[in-house]
């Protein structure tokens, strides 16, 4: 029968011990333990969250890097193309200019040659004229130096001038 009957002493000690343990542990153990656990879980969660955020940021960064790279590549290509075009244009322009210049030079040269030729011919003509006059003078001088000669000449001439 004692087994199922409560005893006062035990109730007293149990209540006392339980309350002492409860209030002591509540203040000095459970509070720090539970808040410590909470804090740690919070910090772990925060760390996980920030890692996730960093991962996303990294991915975004990578994507933007890729984009920038793409843009840079496209810009380089366009720059190169432009440069090539400019180069071609410049070359073509230069070529055209040179051609024109050359043509002009040739033209000028040709004109100059023509002028020189004309001048030379004119001079030659005048010189030939002078020379022939001089020769004619000289011949005349020699032909008409004596009377005999003058007579033969007139004879010759008269002979030639047949009366037609």
């Amino acid at each position, binding site marked *: *029968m*004692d*087994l*199922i*009957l*409560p*005893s*006062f*002493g*035990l*109730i*007293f*000690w*149990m*209540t006392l*011990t*339980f309350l*002492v*343990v*409860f209030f*002591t*542990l*509540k203040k*000095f*153990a*459970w*509070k*720090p*333990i*539970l*808040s*410590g*656990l909470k*804090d*740690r879980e919070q*910090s772990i969660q925060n760390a996980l969250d920030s890692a996730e955020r960093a991962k996303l940021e990294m991915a975004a960064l990578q994507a933007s890097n890729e984009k920038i790279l793409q843009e840079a590549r496209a810009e380089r290509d366009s720059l190169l193309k432009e440069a090539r075009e400019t180069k071609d244009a410049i070359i073509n322009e230069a070529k055209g200019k040179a051609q024109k210049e050359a043509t002009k030079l040739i033209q000028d040269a040709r004109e100059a040659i023509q002028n020189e030729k004309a001048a030379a011919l004119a001079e030659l003509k005048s010189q030939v004229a002078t020379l022939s006059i001089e020769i004619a003078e000289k011949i005349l001088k020699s032909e008409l130096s004596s009377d005999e000669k003058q007579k033969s000449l007139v004879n010759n001439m008269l002979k030639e001038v047949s009366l037609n």
Partner: protein
Amino acid sequence: MTTGIKGFRHFKSLLAAIALLLAVPSFSYAGDTASTEASAKAPEGKEKFNAGDMIIEHVSDAHSWHIAGNFSIPLPIILYSKDRGLMIFSSSKLKHGGVFKGLEKDPNSANGFKESGVHIVVANEDGTINKAETDKLWDLSITKNAFTILMAGFLLIIVFLSVAKGYKQGAMTAPKGIQSFFEPVVQFIRDDIALPSIGKKYEKFMPFLLTLFFFILFLNVFGLIPFFPFGANVTGNITITMTLACFTFIVMMANSGKAYWSHTLWMPGVPAVVKILILGPIETLGIILKPFTLLIRIFANMLAGHIVALSFFSLIFIFGAINIGAGYGVSVVSVIFTIIMLLLDTLVALIQAYVFTLLSAMYFGMATEEAEHH
């Protein structure tokens, strides 16, 4: 509105007080029944082994701690009565059913104290029990169980203060040592008992649930260790489980909300006649039955575990008394069975601590439930 709530608070504390008062009168009868058993107790000496007596002695509370043979460690006996005052003496004074009269300030010096069963009684000059005087006696002795409770309380405080140290400075470090052993248990109680059973308000009940769980667990495990400062069948003692259940009940009542009472006593959607005649009484009974089932469950489980393990162990001596050879033969089987029982009891010790805590948490959950549905 506010006066209504105030009145309601009064009602709750009144209920808690009634619960305590209901628990108190029951132990005053303890003394009477013990007296009849005392005479039946056999005188000591080398006589036939009585398994029943041995087992009951082992699972009962005692004023001295029996170690082996005739050797036992005396524990202090503390008595109080209005006219005698506080009396403290060693239980060694009451050895072998002797009557102790050595208290000089005792006004009724003709009387002495003696042990009757597990109780201390006032004895007349001729050795008979003085019932009138005994009833005035309040026994506050540090018995085997009381000693174990104090030891468990002391150990709990030491252990968990050292566990708490790990959280004070820089809570962000990983748990180590004893902290890493208890932390998962604390987390288990929080995440698997308190949170799902109580809900949002679980934090308020955590200190109580943790204290309850570890107190029961420590006492259960102490009961399984068969060496001196341990081995007392504390949680298999109805006084202990009753006190614990009372705590749960008081906490539950103190935190019970309007929704809980209107739900249990005035179930919506049921005709008034049924509410008053059938549901009312049943639910009122249910309120009392909840802590009662709590106290009976753990008491019966722990007591049965001890009794079965001891019974297997006793088989050795029962067979040994018939034939020495049979005793040795049975001892092998008995020891194996006892070990199996102890392993099972280890499991039971954990489960009962868990169940008690879980049910307490569920009761708190019911009491604090808010009327959101219906």
